[in-house]
């Protein structure tokens, strides 16, 4: 890496005037009938039948090693979209994101299959995140213990569709958190699971932070943001409304939401 001028301030993610635009097929008129679709195709003009959603508008910030950053804002304000853009999963319309290594979104659930046993899902999820078979074998027991799935019997050998929603969420978080990430992004994962599990996951987040990574956390739970984050970005309508220490931003945010 670069010369250690100030060893506390090594940037991990730099977003520069970032804009993200979604394109949605066949939502232009809101009419779903066959004739409406046909007339859309026949009508001339650029990108027929495609509607654009401007989800993130010109966001700039720099995050540093060891920070835990909370992302807050009302529903649909672009928080999850911003995370995906940082992870390089959504292409930027304009502006750019620079990252140190490969940021990972705690989104391993997309790779898991409900019809498979928890056991096979641990392996599949680990491989999907880019772990090697040996690493998974090494961490396997750790993952199962952390999830607490086996506390109520041998559930890990049952298909995931038989799990309660809380159990499934716990297993997903455990798989995702098993890997050491340079930059880890968590999207509302802590809302699920019982109090005991939430405590454990918050502890794991602090641990990941200590391992010199950066953690991003999207949550609507101001308490879990207070407990884990030292800096907060507040997004509203795709724009960065405020960026600062947790307490300051949350105070303004709570005023805004009328709490």
């Amino acid at each position, binding site marked *: 890496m670069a010369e250690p001028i100030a060893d506390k*301030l090594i940037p991990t993610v730099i977003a520069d005037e970032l804009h993200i635009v979604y394109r949605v097929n066949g939502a232009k008129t809101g009419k779903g009938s066959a004739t409406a679709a046909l007339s859309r195709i026949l009508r001339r003009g650029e990108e027929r039948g495609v509607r654009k959603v401007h989800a993130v508008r010109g966001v700039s910030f720099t995050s540093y090693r060891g920070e835990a950053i909370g992302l807050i804002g009302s529903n649909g304000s672009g928080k999850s979209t911003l995370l995906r853009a940082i992870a390089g999963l959504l*292409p930027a319309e304009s502006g750019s994101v*620079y990252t140190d290594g490969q940021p990972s979104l705690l989104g391993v659930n997309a*790779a898991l299959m409900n019809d498979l046993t928890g056991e096979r899902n641990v392996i599949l999820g680990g491989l999907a*995140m880019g772990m090697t078979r040996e690493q998974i074998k090494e961490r396997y027991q750790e993952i199962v213990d952390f999830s607490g799935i086996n506390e109520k019997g041998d559930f890990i050998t049952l298909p995931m569709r038989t799990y309660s929603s809380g159990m499934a969420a716990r297993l997903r978080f455990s798989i995702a958190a098993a890997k050491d990430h340079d930059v880890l992004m968590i999207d509302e994962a802590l809302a699920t699971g019982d109090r005991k599990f939430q405590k454990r996951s918050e502890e794991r987040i602090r641990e990941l932070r200590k391992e010199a990574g950066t953690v991003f956390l999207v949550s609507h739970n101001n308490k879990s943001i207070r407990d884990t984050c*030292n800096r907060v970005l507040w997004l509203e309508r795709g724009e960065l409304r405020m960026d600062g*220490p947790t307490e300051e931003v949350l105070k303004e945010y709570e005023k805004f939401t009328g709490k």
Partner: protein
Amino acid sequence: MSETTHDGTVAVSAAASPDEGLTAAQLAAKYGLSVSGARPSLVEYVRQLWERRHFILAFSRAKLTAQYSQAKLGQLWQVATPLLNAAVYFFIFGVILNASRGMSKEVYIPFLVTGVFVFTFTQSSVMAGVRAISGNLGLVRALHFPRASLPVSFALQQLQQLLASMLVLFAVTIGFGSYPDLSWALILPVLALQFLFNTGLALIMARAGAHTPDLAQLMPFVMRTWMYASGVMFSIPIMLKDKPDWIATVLQWNPAAIYMDLMRFALIDGYGTENLPDHVWAAAGGWAVLVAVGGFVYFWKAEERYGRG
């Protein structure tokens, strides 16, 4: 509590120290940060894909298992589905339409079953390819991996499905009097070449389907036309005896017909070289390499764009 606040203040206020005045790009360059989600070079891409080989294999096997996990007969359907398929085609083309045209029953039934299985392998690879990206957007938007893993994994799933069907095929072939001999060894190169060809096709369809999801609706018709034009249930030279020669030649040179004919030649005793076009192995290899390499490069060219809403 106080500690976290303290941390935060330091991090935010000290941001104004030595790096003040640098633009985002300069700052990124200084600390060796790279643009998120940029497309890797072709060589680097191949390396990344190779690193993910365990994921590709595990994903294809998981899909295969998940497919029948709710059925009472479970994995037995992997063999039962192709068997039923072959029975239906035999009933329609062998019994009702009598498409055998002079082939003895001992040749025609294995001929038909081989054709159905081999063509289904290509057909299902194409259909899975179309939906490889568009049907897995959740995965594409959540995790980082070379996107080619998905179409390759789906093609691999179809290969494993075919290997199960091959057991049925062997039973049928032996049942109608063609016993295993040295020519059965040709099955391996044929399968390998067809798998390469299918993977290339799946990659091409995956990129096309990611951009135009409507292809999933259109492809069944294209595939059915292709199937009837490739001589799955009839012999092309015999059926087109009275037509100009070039029609039969063109149809016989299409890759689906070539892989089918080679497999029949390998398995069935009464199906000799007279049924194969000239330079058949060169054609089989050429199609495989052309489509596999072309498809891979074509897919890689759009790597950074997959997953856009």
